[in-house]
């Protein structure tokens, strides 16, 4: 019997069938952790990567290089496009303006970037929103070369191709209006909140549509991102989410589904258990990164209640085990997640956030190696 290809493995899992083993996702890894990993494994050629030339940003991430991706038998490869959140205009060494008009700036000591939006910290009107220079995702040349890149990946490799189509509506609203301001608008000035949602959704939907019209037929999974929760709860009451936010996310999923047969993967950090029925309702087919240490997000519970409808992409604890555990504890974590999420397929294993700076290289190796070791499905015997 021919060995299963990487792509078949992922597609089967997403179709809720058991492949030969649990597929392995392609995760982002902090550049510092990555350098430690490369040195630990003696794979010096991976230190030559251009992404490592500028090491001034401690929060910089990248994916593993080709040697390590093969060493760990990672099944997925990303197809990236230049997001609207990237540099549109460099302001100075520490800050830039993005395509939306949001200013991103790095603090001297902090690991994250601060954002300042054009509608933040002041009173605004619907007319202000109409007047804003919204980015045009259909600008000529934006996707030059993308289709050819996707075609090559699809035809010349056997990896599952994951296309990133960007954020859906919540993230850009928060960055443009201010995190707290937009939350307050939802409660106090719903017309304003929804006016912003409308403008933002038009852009993100157009972006997804434009990307997928180029490459939709070459992708196996399409990922969009929108953080909807914290450690212990979603940002909003489920009833508020359903009434005021869900329809806009629904338009994003609809735009994706009308332009590709690939499965729809939604990224959201945090405790989103109470929102899952609504995400399933709008057509989300798998969730990432599956932060199981967030409240109500225990793996066994998610599988039992939503495993028929949702695939789980990620799940290996990166708040405690990966950074602070021993390699044996990492192996135990992998084994138990496979046991809880693996049956009947629907599980693609990865870390539940980017692999952070503190994660020791031994733990990265333990995660990937034990994923292979414990991930085999019994083909004939009962699991």
């Amino acid at each position, binding site marked *: 019997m021919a060995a299963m290809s990487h792509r078949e493995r992922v597609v089967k899992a997403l179709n809720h069938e058991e492949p030969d083993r649990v597929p392995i996702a392609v995760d982002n890894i902090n550049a510092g952790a990555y350098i430690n990993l490369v040195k630990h494994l003696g794979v010096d050629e991976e230190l030559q990567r251009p992404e490592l030339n500028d090491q001034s940003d401690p929060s910089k991430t990248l994916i593993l290089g080709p040697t390590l991706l093969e060493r760990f038998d990672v099944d997925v490869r990303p197809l990236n496009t230049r997001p609207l959140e990237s540099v549109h205009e460099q302001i100075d060494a520490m800050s830039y303006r993005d395509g939306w008009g949001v200013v991103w700036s790095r*603090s*001297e*000591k*902090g*690991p*994250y970037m*601060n954002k300042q939006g054009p509608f933040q910290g002041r009173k605004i009107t619907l007319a202000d929103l109409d007047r804003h220079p919204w980015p045009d995702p259909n600008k000529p040349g934006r996707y030059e070369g993308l289709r050819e890149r996707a075609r090559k990946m699809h035809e010349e490799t056997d990896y599952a191709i994951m296309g990133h189509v960007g954020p859906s509506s919540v993230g850009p609203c928060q960055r443009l209006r201010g995190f*707290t301001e937009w*939350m*307050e608008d*939802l*409660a*106090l000035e719903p017309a304003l909140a929804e006016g912003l949602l409308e403008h933002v959704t038009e852009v993100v939907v157009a972006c997804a549509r434009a990307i997928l019209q180029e490459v939709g037929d070459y992708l196996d999974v399409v990922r969009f991102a929108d953080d909807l929760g914290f*450690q212990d*709860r*979603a*940002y*909003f*009451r489920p009833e*508020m989410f359903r009434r005021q936010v869900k329809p806009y996310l629904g338009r994003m999923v609809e735009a994706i589904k009308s332009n590709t047969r690939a499965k729809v993967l939604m990224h959201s950090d945090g405790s989103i258990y109470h929102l899952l029925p609504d995400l399933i309702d709008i057509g989300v087919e798998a969730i990432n990164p599956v932060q199981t240490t967030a409240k109500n997000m225990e793996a066994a519970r998610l599988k039992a209640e939503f495993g028929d409808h949702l695939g789980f992409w990620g799940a290996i604890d990166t708040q405690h085990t990966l950074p602070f555990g021993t390699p044996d504890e990492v192996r135990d974590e992998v084994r138990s997640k496979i046991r809880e999420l693996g049956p009947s397929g629907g599980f693609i294993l990865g870390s539940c956030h980017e692999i952070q700076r503190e994660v020791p290289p031994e733990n990265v190796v333990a995660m990937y190696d034990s994923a292979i070791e414990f991930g085999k499905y019994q083909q004939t015997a009962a699991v």
Partner: protein
Amino acid sequence: MGVTEISEYVIVGDVKGAGEWTRKALGEGMDALTIVNKGLIPGMDVVGEKFKNFEYYLPEMLISARVMKAAMALINPLLAGLEGVNVGKAVIGTVQGDIHDIGKNLVGMMLGGAGFEVIDLGTDVAADAYLKAVEESGAQLLCLSALLTTTMTEMGTVIKLLDDAGIKQNVKTMVGGAPVTQRFASEIGADGFATDAGSAVDEAKTLLSIAAS
């Protein structure tokens, strides 16, 4: 007019209604401190409970805080003039590298409501700015907030700076924020620690030996 009416405005997050009520109540001679202690703070206590019980999420919490802030803006000028009301000065801020401020803002509001003069330095504040503010204002209390494990270590830096400058014994330091624990607070030499805005006021009063209201 009953003072508990303002509690309701806080709980439902009615900024407009709260403003109108507060103006009317003050105009009719209701005591400002009574409005704070018997009206606003009990209202925020209920909001805090509803948040703990997963009835309120972030939008509800934020608009209640807006009501508190709006009412306090009308009341603060009256409190400042009252003798014996000013229980002390507190410098507060979020540490360098960290921009989280919701918790810090709530603590500031609660301290203000409890009679403190609050000097809020904002977020991403460098250690020497805290030193300068404490020296210049003569504040008896310094409150530091951080939400990230990577930035909370800055709290130790600030406290050490106060110590090196020889003024640590003149100011009580208090720390808080999601990753902060009593153990961490003790390790860095903080005088106090609190898990939420309500307990922060109690802790502040304890540290400064002020009787609880």
